C-alpha cells in the first residue's frame, strides 16, 4: 500500500503533471499532422527523455503516446489519412461523416471512445500485470526461452500479409541484434573489426530509422500535388458538431464490447491494434441494429474501431511488465525509454522498482483524463493542424531525427544508422515486408539467446539431457496455454477470412 501511495505521489508531482500535459499536447498535434504516425512521433521524442529527470521524461512519453493515438484518428476522419494502420478502420465511417460536414461529431465520438477504451485497458493492466509477474517469478531459463520464441513466432506470423515475410523480418532483426560482442564469451560477432559495431547496434537509432525515417521517405516519394495541403468543410448546425447523450448511450454497449476485445488482443504479443480495430468493427457491424449504416457514416463504427485500437495500448504493456517482452511497437518504444533511464522491465521490476511501476499506472490514468480535456481543444484547432504542407514537414522530421539520434551517444555513426535503417525500412515497406517483427526480433534475441544457451548448459549436467525441460510443470503449462492460444487465434483468422470471402 505504501508503494502504491508513493507511486501516485511520484506521478502527480507538479513537474510530472506538466510533463504529461506537454506530452499530450505535443502528441496530439504531431499525431494530427498528416504523415506523422503515432509511433513515429514517439520515436522522435524517446532520445530526449534521456536528458530529463526520469519522472518528467517517462510521463511525458506516456502522455505523448496517448495523445498521438487520438491525434492520428483526426487525420483518418478529416482527410482519409490514418496516422496509424489501426486508424484505417476509423476511416471507414469517420471520413463519410466528415464528408457530410459532421467531422466534429465524428472526432468527438473518436475522443470519447478512445479515452474509454484506454482507461478500460489501463485498469486491466493494473490488475493483470502484477498477478502475471508474480507467476513469472517462478520461470527459469527454459520457460523464458519458450515464451520469447513463442512471442517471436506470434509476431512474425500475425503481422503483415504473409507469414514468410513476417518470419524473414524477425530473422533479420535477430541477425542485427547479434552484431556486437557475444554476451557470454565476449567474442566479436558480425563486426568485421569495425570498432563502432562492437558496442552493438543502438535500439534508439534503429527505432527512429525504421519507424520515422522510412515512413518519411515513403511519404516523400508521393507526387508533388499530394504533398500540398487539403480542404475541409464543417457543418454549421450545432447538432452536427456535438455527440448527444442519447447518441453516446446508444454506442456504449459497442464501446464496452470493443474495449474488452481490444484489451484481450493487446495482451497477446503480435496481434496489435490494427487487428483489434477491424475485429471490433466487424463485431459491431454484425451485432448492430443498423448494419446497413456501416461504411456510410455510422457513429457506432467510429466508436468500435477507436475504443478497440486504444484499448490495445494499455494491455500491450501486460507482457512487457509481466515478462519483459514487448508485444507491440508501442511497448518497444516505452521499453527503450525505460532502458535509457536504467530500468529493465520484466517480472523483477515489481520487486526492484515497485514505486516506479505504480507511478506508471497512475500516470496512465492521469494521461487519459488530460487527453479527454485537451482533445476538445485539439478538435477546434485541427482545421489548421491537418493542413501543414508535407514538403516542409518531412525534411524537418529527418533533421530532428538525426539530432535525437546523435544526442544519445554523441556519435555521428548513430545518425548514419538512422538513415541506413530508414532506407532499409523503406525498402521493406516497398517489398511488403513488415518492419515491426524486425524490431521485436532485435529486442528479443538477447533474451532468447541467453536463456537458450543457459537451458542447454543446464541440460548437459542433467541425466535426461535437454529432455529435462519436460519435467518442469511451468514449462508444460506454458506449452498448453500456447497451443490453446494458437488454436483460438488461427480459428479466429479463418473466420475472418471466410467473412471477407463471403462479403466479396
Amino acid at each position, binding site marked *: 500500500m505504501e508503494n502504491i501511495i508513493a507511486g501516485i505521489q511520484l506521478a502527480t508531482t507538479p513537474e510530472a503533471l506538466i510533463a504529461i500535459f506537454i506530452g499530450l499536447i505535443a502528441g496530439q498535434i504531431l499525431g494530427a499532422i498528416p504523415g506523422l504516425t503515432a509511433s513515429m512521433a514517439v520515436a522522435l521524442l524517446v532520445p530526449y527523455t534521456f536528458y530529463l529527470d526520469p519522472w518528467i521524461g517517462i510521463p511525458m512519453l506516456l502522455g505523448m503516446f496517448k495523445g498521438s493515438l487520438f491525434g492520428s484518428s483526426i487525420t483518418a476522419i478529416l482527410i482519409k489519412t490514418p496516422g496509424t494502420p489501426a486508424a484505417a478502420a476509423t476511416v471507414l465511417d469517420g471520413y463519410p461523416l466528415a464528408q457530410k460536414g459532421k467531422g466534429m461529431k465524428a472526432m468527438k465520438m473518436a475522443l470519447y471512445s478512445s479515452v474509454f477504451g484506454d482507461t478500460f485497458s489501463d485498469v486491466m493492466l493494473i490488475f493483470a500485470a502484477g498477478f502475471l509477474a508474480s507467476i513469472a517469478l517462478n520461470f527459469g531459463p527454459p520457460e523464458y526461452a519458450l515464451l520469447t520464441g513463442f512471442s517471436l513466432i506470434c509476431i512474425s506470423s500475425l503481422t503483415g500479409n504473409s507469414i514468410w515475410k513476417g518470419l524473414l523480418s524477425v530473422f533479420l532483426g535477430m541477425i542485427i541484434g547479434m552484431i556486437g560482442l557475444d554476451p557470454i564469451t565476449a567474442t566479436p560477432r558480425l563486426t568485421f573489426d569495425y570498432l563502432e559495431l562492437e558496442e552493438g547496434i543502438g535500439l534508439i537509432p534503429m527505432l527512429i530509422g525504421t519507424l520515422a525515417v522510412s515512413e518519411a521517405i515513403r511519404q516523400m516519394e508521393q507526387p508533388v500535388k499530394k504533398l500540398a495541403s487539403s480542404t475541409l468543410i464543417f457543418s454549421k448546425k450545432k447538432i452536427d458538431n456535438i455527440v448527444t447523450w442519447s447518441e453516446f448511450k446508444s454506442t456504449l454497449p459497442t464501446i464496452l464490447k470493443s474495449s474488452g476485445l481490444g484489451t484481450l488482443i493487446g495482451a497477446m504479443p503480435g496481434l496489435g491494434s490494427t487487428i483489434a480495430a477491424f475485429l471490433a468493427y466487424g463485431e459491431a457491424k454484425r451485432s448492430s441494429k443498423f448494419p446497413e449504416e456501416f461504411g456510410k457514416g455510422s457513429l457506432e463504427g467510429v466508436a468500435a474501431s477507436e475504443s478497440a485500437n486504444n484499448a490495445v495500448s494499455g494491455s500491450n504493456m501486460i507482457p512487457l511488465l509481466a515478462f519483459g517482452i514487448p508485444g507491440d511497437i508501442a511497448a518497444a518504444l516505452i521499453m527503450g525509454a525505460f532502458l535509457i533511464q536504467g530500468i529493465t522491465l520484466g517480472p523483477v521490476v515489481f520487486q526492484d522498482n515497485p514505486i516506479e511501476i505504480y507511478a506508471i499506472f497512475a500516470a496512465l490514468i492521469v494521461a487519459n483524463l488530460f487527453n479527454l480535456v485537451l482533445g476538445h481543444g485539439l478538435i477546434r484547432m485541427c482545421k489548421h493542424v491537418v493542413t501543414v504542407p508535407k*514538403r516542409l514537414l518531412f525534411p524537418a522530421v529527418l533533421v530532428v531525427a538525426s539530432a535525437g539520434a546523435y544526442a544519445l551517444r554523441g556519435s555521428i555513426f548513430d545518425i548514419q544508422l538512422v538513415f541506413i535503417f530508414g532506407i532499409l525500412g523503406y525498402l521493406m515497406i516497398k517489398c511488403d515486408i513488415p518492419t515491426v517483427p524486425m524490431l521485436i526480433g532485435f529486442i528479443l534475441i538477447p533474451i532468447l539467446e541467453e536463456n537458450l544457451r543457459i537451458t542447454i548448459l543446464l541440460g548437459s549436467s542433467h541425466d535426461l539431457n535437454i529432455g529435462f525441460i519436460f519435467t518442469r510443470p511451468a514449462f508444460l503449462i506454458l506449452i498448453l496455454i500456447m497451443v490453446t492460444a494458437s488454436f483460438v487465434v488461427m480459428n479466429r483468422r479463418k473466420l475472418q477470412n471466410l467473412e471477407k470471402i463471403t462479403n466479396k
Partner: protein
Amino acid sequence: MNFNKINHEKLLIIGLLCLTLFFVFWVIPNSIIDPENFGIKDGLPPSFTAYLVGLLTFFTLAFQFINIFFFKKNNNVRNGIVIFSKKNLSRSFNIILICLLYCFLFIEYLGFYLGSFIFIIVLSFILGEKRVLILSIFSTFLVLFIYVGFNIGFNIFLPESKILKQVLEGILN
C-alpha cells in the same frame, strides 16, 4: 521499369536466397570466430545462433520458393506493393541520395547546423517547394530552434563543421 507483382515476388525470393547463402557461407565464418575447444558443456558457441537464424531464413525462403515456383501458390502476392513504378523510381532515388549525402558527408564535413540548413533547402525544393523566401525562413528557423534546444537547453553540442574550422584556423594563422 514496371515489375509484375508475381515476378517481383520471385525476384525478391531469389535475391534473398542468394543473400542468405552469402551470409551463412561467407559472413558468419569470416566474422565470428568461436573460441578454441569450445564444447557443448561450455554452452553453445557464439556462432550457433547466427547459423541457426541463417538456416531458418534459408528454409523459410526455400519453402516459399517451392510454393511459388512449383505449386504456383501466390495468394498473398496480390496484396503486396509493387516495388517501384517508373514515376517514383527517380524521385525515391533522389531522396535517398540526398539523405545519404546528408548523413555521410554534410554532417561530417559541414557540421550539423550548416549541413541541415542545406539539406532542408535541397530536399524541400525537390519535394516541390520552390519559394526561396519560405525555404530560407523555414530552414533558418528550424536550425535555430534545434540550436537553442540542444546547445542552450540540453547542453548537447551537435557536430561542428570540419571545413569551416579549417578555414577559420587558416585565416587566424
